[in-house]
């Protein structure tokens, strides 16, 4: 039974409840919600009152889940970044909810910092060497840039938020990894401006307050193509210099290096099976154990793609499933227990696939060069976005 996060507010001062998100079963009816409110108010009053609820201005008559389905309210949002210099937020049904514009160049990577409640924080990394931290009010559907993270000397190709949601790491073409704070504040960090200003006026106005990195991790000899957090103290990065490095955030040093033979395009870590999956330009997906002390041991090699593997992602709930996207227009669903062939080949894209992801509920997403975002469900149905 799935749960929904809900907040209750009222203008009637008698029945004010704490403005905290509560986890409510999705199939709750009006009576159940009334009971919940009564329980919360038991401390204050003694009587049981029957309440009526309004969801987005509509009276709740049926169960919450059916109401939401009919009204088209979803709590799962999809964030996409595109080469048109914007990021967009979509619902799982495929309706665009918001366009996040502000970068001066192509948005290379996006990430949610936190998604619960009414305001969500999201990050966009771009070719213009900055990462913007945005605050999105889902109720009022407004987005505002809080911080502009400067510091990279090359296009920021990848970002990843740590499990606690307080920090994020970015990797860029200048071969560096930088750790930043993901908490929005009201201070601006000082950065050194170059001594002589260029003659040409900078057209870009800065969005948000400037932020500088907490830490810089250097060690790669070529561009960093993908970063992720293994846990809240370890960062794993894959790069064009054919290595995957694991860094310790506390000390800023490198813990392990896994060496491959070809450029790594993407990596993904699964805490369920504690394996790292990497996609390379030689069309293979390799599984590694990040805890190995000795050199590089490829545990498994999944081969089926006929082009560069540009994206891999482990399933959040399955220990053995992962989905991969490639330049050969295919998205493949793999089970690592049967490594000879993928479970499914999802051929929906007409052009190269650049990114794949999972939602909490097991929905697969993929986006590609044909400007489309596709969602797939395991039971082999798909919906276009």
């Amino acid at each position, binding site marked *: 039974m799935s749960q929904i996060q809900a907040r209750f507010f009222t203008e009637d001062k008698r029945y004010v409840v704490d403005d905290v998100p509560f986890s409510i079963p999705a199939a709750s009816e009006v009576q159940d919600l009334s009971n919940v409110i009564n329980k919360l108010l038991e401390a204050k009053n003694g009587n049981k009152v029957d309440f009526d609820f309004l969801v987005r201005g509509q009276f709740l008559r049926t169960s919450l889940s059916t109401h939401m389905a009919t009204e088209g309210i979803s709590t799962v949002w999809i964030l996409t970044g595109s*080469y048109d210099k914007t990021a967009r937020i979509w619902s799982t049904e495929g309706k665009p909810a918001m366009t996040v514009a502000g970068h001066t160049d*192509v948005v290379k990577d996006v990430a949610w910092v936190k998604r619960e409640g009414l305001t969500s924080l999201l990050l966009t990394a771009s070719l213009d*060497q900055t990462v913007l931290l945005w605050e999105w009010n889902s109720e009022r559907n407004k987005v505002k840039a809080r911080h502009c993270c400067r510091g990279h*000397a*090359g*296009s920021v190709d990848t970002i990843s938020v740590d499990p606690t949601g307080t920090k994020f790491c970015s990797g860029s*073409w*200048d071969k560096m990894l930088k750790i930043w704070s993901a908490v929005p504040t009201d201070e601006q960090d000082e950065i050194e401006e*170059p001594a002589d200003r*260029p*003659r*040409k006026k900078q057209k870009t106005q800065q969005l948000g307050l400037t932020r500088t990195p907490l830490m810089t991790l250097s060690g790669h000899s*070529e*561009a960093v*193509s993908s970063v992720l957090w293994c846990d809240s103290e370890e960062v794993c990065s894959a790069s*064009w210099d054919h290595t995957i490095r694991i860094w310790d955030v506390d000390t800023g040093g490198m813990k392990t290096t896994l060496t491959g*033979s*070809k*450029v790594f*395009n993407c990596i993904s870590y699964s805490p369920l099976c504690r394996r790292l999956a990497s996609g390379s*330009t*030689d069309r293979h997906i390799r599984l590694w154990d990040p805890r190995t002390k000795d050199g590089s041991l490829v545990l498994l090699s999944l081969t089926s793609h006929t*082009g*560069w593997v540009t994206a891999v992602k482990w399933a959040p709930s399955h220990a053995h499933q992962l989905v991969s996207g490639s*330049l050969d227009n295919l998205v493949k669903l793999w089970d690592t227990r049967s490594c000879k062939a993928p479970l499914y080949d999802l051929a929906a894209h007409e052009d*190269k696939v*650049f990114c794949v992801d999972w939602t909490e509920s097991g929905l697969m997403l993929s986006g590609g*060069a044909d400007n489309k975002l596709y969602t797939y469900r395991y039971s082999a149905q798909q919906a276009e976005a």
Partner: protein
Amino acid sequence: LDIRNTVGNIPMEWYKDFPHIGYNLDGKKIYKPIRNKDELDDFLDKMENPEYWRTVHDKQTGSDVVLSDDQVELVNRLQRGQFGDVNFNECEPMVEFFSSDVMIHPVTNRPADKRSFIPSLTEKEKVSKLVHAIKMGWIKPRRVEDDGRGRYYNLWASEDSSILARHKMHLPAPKIPLPGHHESYNPPPEYLFTDEERALWEQQDPADRKLPFVPRKYSSLRQVPAFSQFIHERFERCLDLYLCPRQRKMRVNVNPEDLIPQLPKPKDLQPFPTTRSLVYRGHSGLVRSISVSPSGQWLASGSDDGSVRFWEVCSSRCMKTVQVGGAVKSVAWNPNPSVCLLAVALDSVVLILSPSLADKQVILSSERLLSAQQEGEEPAEGNGSVVWSEAEGEELNQGLRLKIQHPKAVHQVVWHAKGDYLASVMPDNTSHLQVYIHQLSRRRSQNPFSRNKGLVQCISFHPIRPYFFVATQRSIRIYNLVKQEMTKKLQTNSKWISSMAVHPGGDHVICGSYDCKLSWFDLDLSTKPYKMLRHHKKAVRGVAYHRLYPLFASASDDGSVIVCHGTVYNDLLQNPLIVPVKVLRGHVMTHDLGVLDVTFHPTQPWVFSSGADATICLFT
């Protein structure tokens, strides 16, 4: 009355004078019968006595006896050689004592003697006598002679080896083939010449003919004439025997595969590009030239449709398009990693573009480089025909910064490794002002050459040392820029050089030519090519070296890019190892043109190729 004489076998003349002839058994004298017959009576008797022929005078008894018929018969039989006894049958059946039939009883049942089982006693006696005699020395045994040395003579012991060799080398003349059906006097009709064959036979040279004669048909052997070619044939045979030189051909038993040097297998020489990964589409005309940024993130391409496009390497997205208003012949990215500038050659102008595709610091330093003021110094001589100008207005927004106007059409621009100097080529057979070297920071241009040596095809700077390579149609000249003189002239065997590339180490040069050949020159080895590779079927349009990996590639009009491994060894004695490693096909041939330019990624073992089909392919 028994009158048989008992005197015995004595001559009867002894009793001539006596009246008796002998004595009978009783001892009484046997008186001679009265013989009163004289010669005449004998004669009359012979004539008239019918019994004369049977009358016999018995000397013993002295009487005449008349033989009876039986007795006469007996005499006759004896005279004939038959047996006397009439009743004797000389043809009695033989009684075989030793018959061929095996009888029950043997002829004799005498048991065998012991002497048939034991050695002969008589021989034993003889042998013992001989032995005794030998021991006593009466008989000397015959000694066996030793047939050892000295009985024969080694004919060839002192033979001369040259004579032996000549004998060994003797090759007998080939035997004359036995006559066949053609030589027959009455061959089957198919062996005779038809009219056409006859005409052909007469036309051909005597040396070319298969048969030295014309087959003839005669009905009988009598009609066969004398062979006219007899003496000629014998003469030819004699010439063959003693005049034709014959020599033993020493055939070397060599496997042809052993002669080919063992090259390492391509899979040992990984990494190299193998498959086409990305295609950059967007141009509408053939893409003549491509160049990768030193960081490896961007690819710039110039095409005949008048645009310069910037692509992101990893996603094949065209980030920027700059319309420059003329077919672009050559693009070259500034190799200095701290600036981001692109030189574009189109028509008779060279443009310097500053695409803002890099870090702000980099862009700043690019701007700084470009905007160096001349500080009032007058332009140097030789600068007259080349005009530098700054871009303004709309062109500035597009990214254009500087324009260098040349007197003629520019075919190629090339940067120096440090990124400050730029060389451009205006091919022209007649003038010596084909090559210009420009300095970006001071906006100066100069002609290094005072004499015309041929139509310049392409130029290149040496990556490390101050040398300058100029390729004309048939040779490559290397000039020392500091000493201002020509150091070397490399002779290629090609008719028309199309492109040239210098190894990052600086000691090797490859050049591709329109006659499908790629020559590798080792500058330390000689001025002739070290290796000529003929892998392509059509003209080679572009060649390139990889900056880090030991790879080089050639692009050709047959639509393929051939990537070869070329390791250069640090020790000067070992020649470079060249192994062709992969043929990459990714382009479609358009208007008989294939791949026009090829270049490697600066850090990864990837190769980019641009073709006449308006696409750029990335092979990884």
